[in-house]
């Protein structure tokens, strides 16, 4: 029973960057799962009243927490973009090697750009920057 081969034997393949994107999809999925728990914790803080919400937002405002939030944002956005790539593959399209490599580049570039845009809007929603006329 223990001698049966188990599916992901990663060591036997020649490394290609599309592999690391695939591994990153799983990894960011796991990070996003933890992010989901953080999201529920935030909802519960909101439901618990003004004091609980204020202390939750205070905790999320520390420099370390902000860095963690950026990590969650990138993980979620990458998983979102690469998830679309996977769904397109599921229809049988885009599976040629050149196409898969090209869509991988698109996903990476899109994820970085969208993360940057999200950080900007998040800073605004957190009240860290103001649009238009600065006081």
């Amino acid at each position, binding site marked *: 029973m223990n001698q049966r081969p188990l599916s992901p034997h990663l060591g036997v393949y020649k490394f290609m960057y599309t592999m690391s994107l695939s591994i990153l999809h799983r990894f960011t999925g796991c990070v*996003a799962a933890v992010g989901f728990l953080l999201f529920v914790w935030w*909802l*519960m803080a*909101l439901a618990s009243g003004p004091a609980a919400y204020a202390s939750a937002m205070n905790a999320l405002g520390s420099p370390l927490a902000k860095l963690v939030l950026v990590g969650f944002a990138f993980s979620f956005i990458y998983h979102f973009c690469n*998830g*679309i790539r996977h769904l397109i593959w599921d229809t049988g399209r885009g599976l040629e090697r050149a196409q898969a490599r090209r869509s991988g580049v698109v996903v990476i570039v899109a994820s970085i750009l969208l993360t940057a845009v*999200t950080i900007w809007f998040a800073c605004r929603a*957190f009240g860290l920057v103001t649009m238009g006329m600065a006081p």
Partner: protein
Amino acid sequence: MSLRTPLSKVIGRGSAGEGVGHWWMQRVTAVALLPLTAWFVISLLGQSLQSYDAMRGWLGQPWVAVLTILLVFTLAWHSKLGVQVVIEDYVHGKGAKTTLLLLSTFVHAGAVAAGIFAILALALS
């Protein structure tokens, strides 16, 4: 007594014994999450996150509450299916695997209950 033959009970179920159910639901929840998460993130970042009253007023609106409940439910389902595959692939000891799968199921169930309760509490009070 069933009229189904033993063959008809196993056909299409494969070696895992559950057919394509897991694979398919991961795709169904993925497709549902594309508009739900995009809507939520874009709407949320248009709010004043520091203001309790503003957030409460926003999440308490009927359609915002309904869509956010769908979001929490679908996120949890998709997350549960994904974490399950990761545990099944990388945790090889039977005891550890079963323990982690149970733990993941319970944590996801708890998160769904808490998330939906929180939204209802905001919307209905």
